[in-house]
């Protein structure tokens, strides 16, 4: 106890047995000196929350009676900021929403704007988007797997997954110059021409990932500690998951076959041959299996993209919204005018609204873009999967043991930037 802390004065006269401890623990006793209920603050600074999430847990011994997630510690007002930026400037903000799946956010926003503008994207750019988004999905799942395993006590997978993730980030750096905040997918196509040697680099990484995924599975799938910590933990009936608005791997682990890549096809996803893995276990282990299988399917998609990559331009033919070629700008007056207009005024988007959905590594990611006919979006709403999924945390934790809370939270795989925006 802190020096000079007046222990008696801290006693609440109304509840004379309630003692507020400076460490944040709150006890209430039954009068016989035995603590019955305890309120425990998990977070906002707790390693297993992977960010700044606060969960107020009410405990009876080690059993959780109720859990209340408190969010908003990472609220940065991104949606407000979108309204004062031009359409092409918003792209950099979408990177920062879900900082583990930047390209998926770029893609969703780009698709929404392209739909409002009625712009058609060439096949090469579409396939390139698919390939990069699947690499992004793997890299996001690698972070999830490494930290999830570390949360329940397995240190080794963390080093292996981050080793492979680094290879993927090097690919992103090669393409865009940035490891994480790539801003590589933009309305109208890609940001830059794909670099020389990308094919060889990506195929090397794809081979490495295929080996790596089996390595992690060897470490964990049959590991008795891992299985005991994850099986029969954190499940909820399917109809409750539906009502709470859960999407993505959690829903697929409960047996619902749903995937935005199949259900609302975009970016040539219908030309790829892949499966949507489902499990019926409906627990933390089933979510692990679903995500592992998703990584394998993503490697499959990346390899198909490498084999069948069409040739063609990497940007749409839309001079009214895309910056002209640098060389043309120096020789042609029209290009110079377009460049000046786009940089100073931006491009106007016809009035209307669109709700675009893509499958992010965490579930359904939706961008609702409302245009009033000017060069700034009137409203950008990000329907983020972490916000929807985190809402179920309270229901999932009720009645489980405190030690399982860590495993359940890791299995939801939320990103707080995605939740709070």
């Amino acid at each position, binding site marked *: 106890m802190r020096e000079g802390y007046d222990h008696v004065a801290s006693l609440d006269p109304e509840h004379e047995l309630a003692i507020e401890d400076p460490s944040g623990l709150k006890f209430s006793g039954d009068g016989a000196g035995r603590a019955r209920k305890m309120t425990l603050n998990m977070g906002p600074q707790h390693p297993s929350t992977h960010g700044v999430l606060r969960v107020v847990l009410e405990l009876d011994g080690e059993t959780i009676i109720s859990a209340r997630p408190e*969010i*908003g510690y990472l*609220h940065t*007002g991104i*949606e*407000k*900021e979108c*309204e*004062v930026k031009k359409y092409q400037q918003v792209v950099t903000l979408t990177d920062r929403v879900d900082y583990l799946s930047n390209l998926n956010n770029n893609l969703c926003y780009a698709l929404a704007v392209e*739909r*409002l503008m*009625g712009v058609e994207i060439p096949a090469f750019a579409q396939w390139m988007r698919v390939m990069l988004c699947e690499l992004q999905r793997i890299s996001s799942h690698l972070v999830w797997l490494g930290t999830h395993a570390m949360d329940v006590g397995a240190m080794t997978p963390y080093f292996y997954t981050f080793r492979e993730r680094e290879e993927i980030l090097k690919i992103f750096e090669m393409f865009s110059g940035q490891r994480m905040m790539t801003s590589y997918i933009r309305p109208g196509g890609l940001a830059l021409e794909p670099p020389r040697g990308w094919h060889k680099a990506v195929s090397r990484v794809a081979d490495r990932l295929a080996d790596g995924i089996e390595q992690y599975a060897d470490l964990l799938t049959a590991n008795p500690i891992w299985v005991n910590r994850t099986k029969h933990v954190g499940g909820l009936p399917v109809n*409750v998951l*539906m*009502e*709470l*608005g*859960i*999407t993505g791997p959690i829903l697929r682990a409960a047996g*619902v076959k*749903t995937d935005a890549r199949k*259900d*609302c096809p975009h970016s040539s996803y219908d030309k790829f041959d892949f499966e949507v893995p489902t499990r019926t276990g409906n627990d933390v282990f089933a979510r692990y299996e679903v995500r592992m299988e998703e990584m394998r399917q993503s490697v499959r998609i990346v390899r198909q993209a490498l084999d069948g990559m069409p040739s063609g331009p990497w940007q749409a033919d839309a001079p009214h919204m895309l910056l002209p070629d640098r060389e043309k700008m120096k020789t042609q007056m029209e290009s110079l005018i377009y460049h000046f207009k786009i940089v100073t005024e931006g491009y106007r988007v016809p009035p*209307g*609204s*669109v*709700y*675009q*959905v893509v499958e992010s590594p965490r579930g*359904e990611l*939706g961008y*609702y873009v*409302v245009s009033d006919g000017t060069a700034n979006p*009137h*409203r950008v*709403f990000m*329907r983020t999967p972490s*916000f*929807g999924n985190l*809402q179920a945390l309270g229901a999932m934790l009720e009645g489980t043991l405190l030690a399982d809370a860590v495993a359940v939270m890791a299995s939801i795989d939320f990103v707080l930037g995605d939740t*709070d*925006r």
Partner: protein
Amino acid sequence: MLPEVVAEDPTAIAISQQFPDAIVDAKNEADGAVFYIDPAQIVAVCGFLKDSAGFDQLAGITGVDWWPRAPRFEVVYFLHSYPHNARVRLLVRLAEGQEIDSVTSVWRGANWYEREVFDMFGVPFRDHPNLERIMMPADWEGYPLRKDYPVHGYKYSYRDE
């Protein structure tokens, strides 16, 4: 009487058979038809769409501020049907301070989304189990996503530094 743009739409026809005057307006957007619903009937329409039309999930709720136009706010409901692989968007027009019934009784997942709309736009939801601010601190003044709210807030300005 259904608005002309959605006279053929099966969801609109189903709603109007059950609630003849619920759809007050409609529009065709880039991703399909959207319906403007009478605010007094939003819970009934949502309940009907969930139980009889297969819209088993609420993907989200958000608001749009059209200030200085009146009525000022639009509350947008994104509905998703897994069995039919369909999506529909319901919009409700609200004036400033006008209350709307909460749809938490239809989908539990509406809870946080309605709190967010309340927090950001100041739209009050009637019969909401826990209508508190969710992103901003509890003692925050103003509603940040309103159009008359400055981007840097009321109290803080870079010029002060």
